[in-house]
């Protein structure tokens, strides 16, 4: 049933882990990237992710269709985003504080409504077997790629293109860089930010649906364990660029697979250290790429980080 692959298990696990684990990071971070490019920070995406995981699982279970679950998760995420965007338009409201409040609200609501769905088994999202060319079952398993991963990657490219070459992209960027300039050319910054936050929330919701409907593939209250928060941080690491968000998500997923993979080939001591690999790697990369002049390179001008 399987071939002995020995140490090859490690690179393979990192590759497989990158594909399996990265998708929620990818969706949340490109969603947050979109929101932040419009000049707002939505720290509440951890709550949106968890609520998306719950609602996606619940709807998939009730309807029997995982894609209906993904849609429901996206809608729920959009509602959270709209709520954030709507409250933030009022004077004196701090988007970071609202984000934290919404994170707690999202998790609380998800735990509350999710109670009856911890036990049932919902249908999983289908995966595309891209490992057909190999005879090795482990390679085939690692290359079981979920459709959402491919959609996420395509969205990252599309979003980068949108920011660079389309009118919508330009509009978001103007609003994000200078509220005054946007007003001067007749744009309504609040509407643009509202829609950007809603779209960002919808993407985070889809990330949640991936967690509960594909990997690890079941709803429970610890399903996210902080991935939404890490993904928000990845946006800064990725310099507000959707393509970099994709690479950052892959890096994070792959590094997370390192701990279990090393133990499985017999490198057993110090596994707590290997579990910290994603964070150590992020820190190291941040230190190597940092420079005092370019610290906020790529950051939208209106972001409250910048003020």
């Amino acid at each position, binding site marked *: 049933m*399987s071939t002995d692959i020995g140490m090859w298990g490690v690179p393979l696990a990192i590759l*497989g882990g990158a594909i399996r684990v990265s998708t929620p990071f990818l969706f949340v971070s490109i969603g947050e990237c979109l929101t932040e490019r419009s000049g707002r920070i939505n720290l509440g995406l951890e709550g949106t992710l968890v609520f998306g995981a719950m609602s996606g699982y619940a709807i998939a279970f009730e309807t029997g269709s995982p894609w209906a679950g993904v849609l429901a998760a996206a809608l729920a995420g959009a509602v959270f985003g709209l709520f954030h965007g709507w409250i933030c338009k009022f004077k004196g409201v701090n988007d970071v504080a609202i984000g934290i409040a919404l994170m707690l609200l999202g998790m609380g609501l998800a735990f509350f409504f999710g*109670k009856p769905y911890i036990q049932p088994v919902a249908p999983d999202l289908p995966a595309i077997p891209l490992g057909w060319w190999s005879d090795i079952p482990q390679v085939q398993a690692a290359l079981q790629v979920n459709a959402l991963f491919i959609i996420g990657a395509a969205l990252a490219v599309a979003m980068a293109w949108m920011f660079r070459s389309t009118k919508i992209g330009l509009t978001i960027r103007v609003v994000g860089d200078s509220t005054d300039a946007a007003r001067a050319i007749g744009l309504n910054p609040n509407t643009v930010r509202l829609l950007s936050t809603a779209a960002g929330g919808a993407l985070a919701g889809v990330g949640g649906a991936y967690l509960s409907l594909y990997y690890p593939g079941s709803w429970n209250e610890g*399903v996210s364990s902080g991935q939404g928060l890490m993904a928000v941080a990845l946006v800064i690491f990725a310099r507000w660029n959707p393509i970099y968000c994709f690479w950052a998500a892959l890096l994070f997923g792959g590094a997370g697979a390192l*701990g*279990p993979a090393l*133990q*499985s080939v017999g490198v*057993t001591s110090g596994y707590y250290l290997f*579990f910290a690999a994603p964070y150590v790697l992020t820190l190291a990369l941040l230190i190597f790429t940092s420079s005092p002049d370019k610290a906020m390179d790529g950051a939208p001008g209106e972001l409250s980080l910048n003020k």
Partner: protein
Amino acid sequence: MTRSTFSRRHFLATTAAMGGVAATGSLIPTRARAANLTVGFIYVGPKDDFGYNQAHAEGAAAVKEMEGVTVVEEENVPETNDVQNTMESMINFDGAGLLFPTSFGYFDPHVLEVAPKYPEVRFEHAAGLWTEGMPTNVGSYFGYIGMGQYLNGIVAGHMTQSKKIGFVAAKPIPQVLLNINSFLLGARAVDPEITCQVIFTGEWSLAVKEAEATNALCDQGCDVITCHVDGPKVVMETAAGRGSYICGYHANQSPLAPEMYLTGAEWNWAGVYPQMVQTMLDGGTIDNFIRGGLADGFIKMSPLGPAVTDAARAQFEETKAEIEKGGFSVIKGPLKDNKGNVIAAEGEEFLETDIALESMDYLVEGVIGSTN
């Protein structure tokens, strides 16, 4: 003058008076306890997790059926000061006279700190190790579920083709290590060539890491997998999805993958808790140290799955009967740990009741993994 109404002295006097009222008030539930017992259950996770918490919640459900007993429950209580607050509020507001803080990490220091403050309340902790000198209103109980993992191992030993079995473990604490060792020794009772790969995730409940660990085991060719984490659902579903057989733990997980499920080591708290509560209702005292195994009804095995072969079934039933007779040892000489140190010399054996097993800090020869 207006200020003086809100002076510190006044505030202290008022709160002291209120405290007095509260103290008098608390006498009433204390007296009511004799006839009517309120029992509090505290879980570290959700109580329908197909795992550790569900096993305890099934026990709580059995207690709920009893005459004159009120059950209060709280889920998702972390192993921090939070559990002290939960215990105190169950005692002060719900009038609980018997508490079951069920998670391992609740015991030291939390139960040990709260118990001396409420000498009239009984604290019963799962898996803790009560020793002389600890508060006498604290008790610890547990079941010898390692025997269940030994039986899992026997079935696994018959079913594995690759001679490699896998174990997803949370933390290297004695109970977990005993389960891992028992699982391998059960398999080695069938074929001494079998090895067991263990992966520690470092936390009791970490869904993504558990899935990654299971995938890593499958990649290395482990074709029968079991676990010791709080909610085995993710491990069971992932392993079955990869085509590995699964042995359950904590509760019966066969509904998740009926074809791949071989058997499982389950808690049977529904058979234990009502007895403990009845002792309290009758005005008796629960022993401070309670342990029990298969024969005492503390643990049970899931029904064997459809894939289990006749040979496996026969050896499983035979060994189970032998364990139920008592006097069966899993850890017996000659036995070395996986670093080459001698654990038990020829002829030396540790009965399931041996207290030395509750401070186990080694993995036996044949287990691939490390305790730190």
